[in-house]
């Protein structure tokens, strides 16, 4: 097991390096945006004195590297500076929004991942049958429909016509957990529909690619029924690619949900990001991007560790 710890530490180190590079890119990209930040923030009230004063106040007159390291030093301890628009702490603005996003992503993942893997196993077992084809067509349809379209369809049928679930996922602090689940069901379902196909098809492909292995033939000539061949003999060897695609989709659930949040008016980090971009609130934009990057890196790390833990060849030495 010492090896696993070693690998994790190494990947974590590499992740930090990646994150550093990304922070440079984010900062540089924002720097390169055309126009003057102070002018953009002040908008119509941008007199020359106002702009100069704001530049002074925001420290925009310092050279870029100085400002970058100021920003980075803050970001490392969780202080992303002050919002240009609201003049409040960026961290305080982001924290509750990010938690909301994590909640929604977790909600969707708890439904989507088991369904996707189960379906993947079933279609691998029933490959090339009618069931396989129908599942294929349905999941392809759901993956190729834009989220906002799926969201509106669900609102139309599950909310407007039947009234089964609320159409708007506005949160308040006094809701019980069950109310919370009910309120956010439709956005979660939309996201489930978007990610389930990818994971299911990967599970199916990973399993089927193993079916020509000699150990699968061995399981068959040992008299194992088809489901056991798939579940006990193919699936355990297919985890690595499945875990990878799951991690990729989890990252998407966290970072790619802007449209769903907008449709359902859900107070997540995606909406915050979009608002910040339109208002040129750069500290918020930078912070959101950095958080998204960290999410990707952490999930990929988790996928690597998962792949190692499910592979006895890596877990146990010769």
């Amino acid at each position, binding site marked *: 097991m010492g090896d696993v710890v070693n690998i994790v530490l190494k990947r974590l180190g590499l992740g930090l390096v990646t994150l550093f590079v990304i922070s440079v890119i984010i900062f540089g990209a924002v720097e390169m945006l055309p126009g003057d930040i102070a002018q953009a923030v002040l908008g119509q009230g941008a007199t020359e004195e106002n702009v100069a004063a704001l530049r002074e106040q925001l420290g925009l007159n310092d050279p870029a590297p100085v400002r970058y390291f100021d920003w980075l030093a803050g970001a490392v301890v969780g202080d992303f500076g002050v919002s240009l628009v609201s003049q409040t702490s960026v961290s305080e603005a982001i924290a509750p929004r990010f938690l909301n996003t994590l909640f929604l992503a977790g909600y969707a993942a708890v439904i989507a991942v088991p369904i996707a893997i189960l379906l993947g196993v079933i279609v691998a077992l029933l490959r090339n049958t009618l069931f396989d084809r129908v599942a294929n067509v349905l999941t392809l349809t759901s993956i190729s429909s834009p989220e906002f379209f799926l969201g509106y369809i669900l609102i139309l049928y599950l909310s407007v016509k039947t009234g089964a679930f609320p159409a708007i996922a506005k949160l308040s602090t006094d809701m019980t957990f069950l109310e919370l689940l009910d309120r956010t069901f439709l956005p979660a379902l939309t996201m489930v529909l978007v990610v389930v196909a990818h994971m299911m098809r990967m599970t199916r492909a990973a399993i089927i690619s193993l079916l020509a292995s000699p150990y699968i033939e061995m399981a068959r*000539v040992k008299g194992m029924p088809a489901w056991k061949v798939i579940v006990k003999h193919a699936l355990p060897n297919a985890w690595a690619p499945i875990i990878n695609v799951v991690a990729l989709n989890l990252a998407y659930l966290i970072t790619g949900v802007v449209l769903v949040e907008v449709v359902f008016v859900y107070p997540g980090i995606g909406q915050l990001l979009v608002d910040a971009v339109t208002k040129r609130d750069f500290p918020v934009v930078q912070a959101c991007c950095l958080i998204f990057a960290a999410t990707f890196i952490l999930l990929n790390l988790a996928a690597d560790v998962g792949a190692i833990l499910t592979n006895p060849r890596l877990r146990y030495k010769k």
Partner: protein
Amino acid sequence: MESKRDVLLEIRDLKIEGYSDEKWIEIVHGIDLTLHRGEVMGLIGESGAGKSTIGLAAMGYARDGCRIASGSVEFDGMELTTTPESDRRALRGSRIAYVAQSAAASFNPAHRLIDQHTETPVHYNIRKRQDSQEDAMELYEKLRLPNPREIGFRYPHQVSGGQLQRAMTAMAMACRPDLIIFDEPTTALDVTTQIEVLLAIRDIVEQYNTAAIYITHDLAVVAQMADTIKVLLKGDEVEESDTRSMLDNPQEEYTKSLWAVRSFQRDQKQRPTGDAVPVVSVENIDASYGPVKVLEDVSFDIYAGMTVAVVGESGSGKSTTARCITGLLPPTKGRILFNGEELPADYRKRSKDQLRQAQMIYQMADTALNPKVLISEIIGRPAAFYGGLKGGALKSRVDELLDLIELEPSKYYNRYPPELSGGQKQRIGIARALAADPTFIICDEVTSALDQLVAEGILKLLDRLQKELNLAYMFITHDLATVRSIADEVVVMKQGKVVEQGPKNEMFTPPHHPYTDLLLSSVPEMDPDWLTTVVEERGVDNIGEAANT
């Protein structure tokens, strides 16, 4: 022998079809087979003879893309071709078991050995898990596996190939089946490991009076194991009789040709006298993969027109030595000389002419040839690269090379590797090496993936080319029969060191280094009593890996 012993398996007019090019093609053309309880039948033939397909059909099983077209397979009074699949499945593993060629590939890497062992008995409620685990340990002990009470709790990658093959035999025994199909169980093993596995299999089959179908292409192996032998050719039976009369007095021409394969032997050449300089000199090289030292103080010379066979078991450093000579793995110590001149250790620092002089032919022609590239280009590329040939000159050079390897140029010029047979592919590999116009060729197990008749053709071709082009060969092999037929000198390697070297006739006559002796005496012979004799000489506990350390 009474004629009306208990018949266990009766196959009548069995026809099996395989699906290819969008139609069903018959690959087994009406085979009859009768097996009695406790009897061991050897199925022998070249690849494509249908041995494995028939073996699996005896379990009522057909691989994906195959189907039993007609005929009957009657196992212990039950007609398997008409029985529902669920009933057939219940027979598999419990009453008819299968031992596959490569245990390393056939054990599931994700589960411990003992969990795979207990799977069938537990699934069919034949034994409780605890009981089956105890039984597994007993079987491991009977099969002389080390640490029988502990080894089952390892994963397949933690156990050596020979041990895995025995563990798989134990797994086949888990439900005490009436019949076991052994499908080339020792083909992938070194001779010293093979002998151990053969003995273990023979003992356990005798002990439990299990009937077996033993599939192999190695006559000497089947001679040790089988009571009767059936010879197959392209899905047809050639002949069948009991082992002794089959060996002493084969009836059919095909069988006789199989028996005669190992007779090819060319005259042994002597080193040139005087101050001739060897084409290749390996001088005291050490090499490592990372921190692991894999070669230690390896030295030998190869003279023009001569063949040096480098023999040893897997992991002995044969291929690593070749990698050092070609500069793929720079040695950490020592020198490689080419015609007396020191070569840079790294191939990237060698001149084009130095690179041209040494070429390689690989074991798996399948993977060594790019399937998407035309034969003419595969051969033409090195000719163009080293010889600077273009256009018409290049084409006539490729034609000339195809002629050399005895393939009709007009027929093969515009074909792709997948359209060729294994032997033809290996010939293309040879032509590609010749295209550079080398003086030295490394042949890395070039015949071990081929059937014996085909392999013999390749050996004869290599021999002819050597005479015509005065080539020096380094011939890496673990097969001593190949050494006997083509080598002039032999280098025996073990654990990265040269244990013995010298002219072939000296190597094959005593006294030997003890390791050479072990290697030589572990090669099965056509005598059916060979295994028994060797065991008596060495003692049961001193066979194979045990004797090796």
